[in-house]
């Protein structure tokens, strides 16, 4: 006999019940985790006009979130080495499911959905083996754990789906950590970061940067509609001006984007977040350590301009250009003659500003 869930699913399938969409949650354009003035944490839905549409309480400091492609549903990840993630109904703020990392795994704080929204993929650490894994969760069955496969490297951090496909691109940062030793990096002298492309659980392509950049940990990703991948890095080597932004397209060599020594120095070897604009003509990165946002020209493959912004954190495409957030509460449009000071919220925005993607 059909239970209630199957009955409702049947109705949904028959098109008899309207499916909830992001419009039912106020049509947020972005999700971002934040710390509130009272020290509690929240996941926020943000409008294209940079207003806060909703705040949903989180039990702990968040890192990134993954937005379901159609349903008004967000998966909020704790900061690494978190062992749980929560699924939130963004209409009501209710917690609808919880993802618990299997024994011997922890999350890195990023996830991506399959094109149809059926599967959620999460970057995970098999910390006894010191190998990266991708967890697969079934969004149609309360996010039950369905499978896992190799990430193609160590320390997978960000994961994105290439638009118009179910190919995943994974930033294997290369750094081994173990929950027993907090955030201590265990393998810097022998680290080997890469970009790995995965389809149907199989590695289909890998890109590396060459021996001289083996300490440039590939951490964060942005993808263009045509499959161009922009990646932001965190340098683990000796001080000095180093490039920390690159571009890659499957089947080609990765390229690092150029900037003056002084401009590279301003980044302090550290990209916090990365985004491509809607036209994929510019790539922007934040450096909370350097207190700057830098915008690069994709075609010219070099720095376009630098914006000073204390504790700059999240970055995402705006209506035109980019919008960015900071740990001081700023949420501003880069290209609208605005400064971070023009748009202060009483929220300390956490690392990432996640666009709610258009189905592709």
């Amino acid at each position: 006999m059909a239970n209630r869930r199957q009955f409702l699913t049947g109705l949904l399938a028959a098109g008899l019940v309207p499916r909830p969409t992001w419009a039912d949650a106020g049509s947020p354009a972005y999700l971002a985790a934040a710390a509130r003035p009272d020290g509690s944490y929240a996941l926020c839905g943000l409008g294209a006009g940079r207003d806060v549409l909703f705040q949903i309480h989180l039990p702990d400091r968040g890192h990134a979130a993954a937005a379901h492609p159609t349903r008004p549903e967000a998966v909020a990840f704790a900061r690494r080495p978190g062992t749980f993630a929560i699924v939130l109904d963004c209409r009501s703020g209710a917690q609808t499911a919880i993802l618990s990392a299997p024994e011997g795994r922890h999350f890195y704080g990023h996830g991506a959905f399959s094109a149809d929204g059926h599967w959620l993929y999460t970057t995970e650490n098999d910390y006894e083996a010191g190998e990266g894994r991708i967890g697969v969760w079934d969004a149609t069955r309360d996010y039950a754990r369905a499978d896992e496969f190799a990430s193609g490297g160590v320390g997978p951090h960000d994961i994105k789906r290439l638009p118009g496909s179910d190919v995943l691109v994974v930033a294997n940062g290369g750094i081994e950590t173990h929950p027993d030793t907090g955030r201590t990096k265990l393998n810097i002298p022998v680290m080997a970061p890469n970009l790995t492309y995965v389809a149907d659980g199989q590695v289909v392509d890998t890109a590396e940067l060459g021996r001289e950049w083996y300490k440039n940990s590939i951490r964060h990703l942005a993808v263009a509609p045509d499959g161009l991948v922009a990646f932001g890095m965190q340098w683990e080597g000796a001080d000095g001006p180093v490039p920390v932004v690159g571009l890659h397209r499957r089947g080609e060599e990765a390229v690092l984007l150029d900037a003056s020594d002084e401009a590279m120095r301003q980044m302090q070897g550290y990209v916090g977040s990365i985004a491509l604009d809607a036209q994929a003509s510019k790539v922007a990165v934040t450096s909370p350590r350097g207190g700057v946002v830098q915008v690069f020209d994709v075609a010219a493959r070099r720095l376009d301009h630098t914006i000073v912004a204390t504790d700059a954190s999240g970055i995402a495409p705006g209506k035109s250009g980019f919008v960015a957030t900071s740990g001081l509460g700023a949420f501003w449009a880069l290209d609208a003659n605005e400064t971070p000071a023009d748009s202060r919220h009483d929220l300390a925005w956490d690392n990432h500003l996640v666009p709610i993607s258009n189905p592709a």
Partner: protein
Amino acid sequence: MRRILCAIAVVLLPSTSFGQDLQAITDDVVQGHILPRFDNLKETSDTLAAAAADDCSPMVEQLRTAYADAFDAWIAASHLRFGPTEVDDRAFALAFWPDSRGVTPKTLAALIADEDPIGAAPAKYADVSVAARGFYALEFLLYDEAFSPSAVSDYGCKLIQTVTADIAATTTAIDQDWQQDYATTLTNPSADAHYRTDQEAAQELFKALSTGLEFTADTRLGRPLGTFDRPRPTRAEVWRSGRSQHHVEVSLASLKDLAMRLTGDNAGLQERLVAAFGRAEAQLATLDDPAFAGVADPQGRFKVEALQTSLSGIRTIIRDELGPQLGVEAGFNALDGD
């Protein structure tokens, strides 16, 4: 839920120091803290190489004592991870630890099994994996039964001489760079130099102190502690030679010296730091757990956890009081990004 320990990062903000003479502080740290440590590291490493050349037998007291002295000298300098130590991975070539995948014993065993000629060629030894170089590799050769220290082979003997000579060469290079160049770089900032201001130089020293404390708390103590259900005594640092607790003592003494110098003339802060370090010192004085084997039973574990809590207290004072005084403020994201 597991407490999340923050990585330390530094964000540049306008100085909030109250009239601290940062130049004087930096000078004092370089002359009184850094240079003596790298001099001593070079001297004791030379003595170690000479002792091994004289008699390579791992059981001989002269070699073991020389090893202990040189290793102590490294631990006392091991938080100074910038500039000369980072050229050509020198610090990693002296200290490949933690070795989470057991690469050090594997690499050494392969050299020995093959009697690889590079193991008898000190001048070329820099080409082998960093995992088979330095003080931690030498611990296996001198103290691990798998490497038969009581019946060392001819090749094993040469390998010990090679590793010690390589350590001496590395520490000499670090010391020379500090003497000839980097001491000036740090104490004479200028607009087009690596450090543009005294504040940037002071921030480098602050970062060394913070990450040094973090390493001792999270890694030297955290690694053997593991979890309550699964303590990991054999993941302790240098447990084979029974030096685990000793390393915590040596590193804390050195970090305290640096912390006190960085306080400048802030007597109130000095007092609070002396008290906070004092708690950890008192706990260490009664710990009596040389290899941290005690983490496997609840009582011993409790003592090591209590020590870790004391270190966390020191770190809070450093972050909240010393940082702002040196013009180092940590932002929400800059402090511990991901």
